[in-house]
C-alpha cells in the first residue's frame, strides 16, 4: 500500500477517535461514583486516580489506582457457608 493511503486510513481513524472523546464532566462523575463505591470496601488514603486511554483498535483502556490504609474486612454470606454455617 502507498504511504499516502496508509496515512489516509490512519488519519481517518484518528479524527473519528478525537470526536469520540470522553468529556471531563463524564470522567468526573465516574470518578466520584467510583470513589463512593470503593470507600464501602476500603479506607482510602487520598484520592482515587484514574487514567483513560484510547487503543489503536478504538477500545478504551481504563486504569484505576488508589492507596488504602485498610480494608473494610466484613464477611458476606458465602464466606459464612465456607466457615461451616
Amino acid at each position, binding site marked *: 500500500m*502507498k*504511504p*499516502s*493511503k496508509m*496515512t*489516509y486510513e*490512519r*488519519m*481517518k481513524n*484518528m*479524527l473519528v477517535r*478525537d*470526536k469520540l472523546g470522553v468529556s471531563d464532566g463524564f470522567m468526573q462523575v465516574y470518578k466520584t461514583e467510583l470513589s463512593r463505591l470503593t470507600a464501602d470496601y476500603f479506607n482510602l488514603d487520598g484520592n482515587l486516580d484514574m487514567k483513560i486511554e484510547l487503543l489503536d483498535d478504538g477500545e478504551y483502556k481504563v486504569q484505576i489506582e488508589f492507596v488504602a490504609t485498610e480494608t473494610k474486612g466484613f464477611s458476606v454470606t458465602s464466606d459464612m457457608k465456607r466457615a461451616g454455617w
Partner: protein
Amino acid sequence: MRKIVITSGKGGVGKTTVTALLGRKLAERGARVVLVDGDVGLNNLDVVMGVENKVVYDVSDVLDGRCRLSQALVIDNESGVAVLPSSSRKFDVSAQAFRGVIESIRGADFVLIDCPAGIEEGFHRAVSSADECIVVTTPSASAIRDADKVVALLSSYRLNDVGLVVNRVRYDMIARGDMLSAKEIGNLLHLGVVGVIPEDDHVTVYQQLGRVPDFAVSEKCAEYLADNVEKGTKQLVEPYMKRRWRLR
C-alpha cells in the same frame, strides 16, 4: 462586502501567507481588498505584505479613538491592497469591539481577516467578525488534526461557507504516493478545497523581503484560489496536474 477569516488551529501553517497571497490576487482582478491582522500582539501581516515601514497607527489606536479607521489603513502601492495592522503589544479587545471596527470598513469588496493560531479569544474575535471562513492546513498529520478541531468549533458560528486551502504541498511526493493529496485532505475534513498552494522556496526567500515575485509557483497557484473565492466555487485544481508548473 464579503468578510472572510483565514484560520487553521495549528500555528505556522501559512495563514498569513495565504491571506496576503489571496488579497493580492483578488486585488489584481480589480477587487477592493482590506486585509485585517487579527493576531494581536504577534502581528506579522504588515511584514508579509511589505508595508511595516509605513505603519503609523494600528487597530488599538482605532479602538481607543486615537485615529480614524482610514488613517490606520496602510496601502500596498503595488497591489492596491489596504492593510489594517494589529498592535505589537498585547491589549484587551472584545470580540464585539473588533467586529465593530470591521463592520465600519467602507467601500471594500473583500475583507480578509488573518486569524491568530490556537482556538482562544483571538480565534473567537476573528471568526465572529466574519461570515465566511477559509481553513488552512498543510498535509502533515498534526496540522490536519488541529484543522479538524477547528472545523468542529466553526459549526457554532454563523458562517455562510467554509472552504479549505492546503498549503506547502509537494507535488512530487503526491505523485509518488508519499503525501496526501488535497482531495484526500478535503475528504478527511469534510471540506471542499478552494485552493492548493505548493511548497515554494520563493516564499521562504522573498517573504522576508516583503514581496514574493509573480513568477513564483505559489503565486500562480493562488490564481485558482482567487478564482474560487471570487466565484464562490470549490473547483479543485491540484497543481501537480498542471505539467508546466511542476517543480524541478
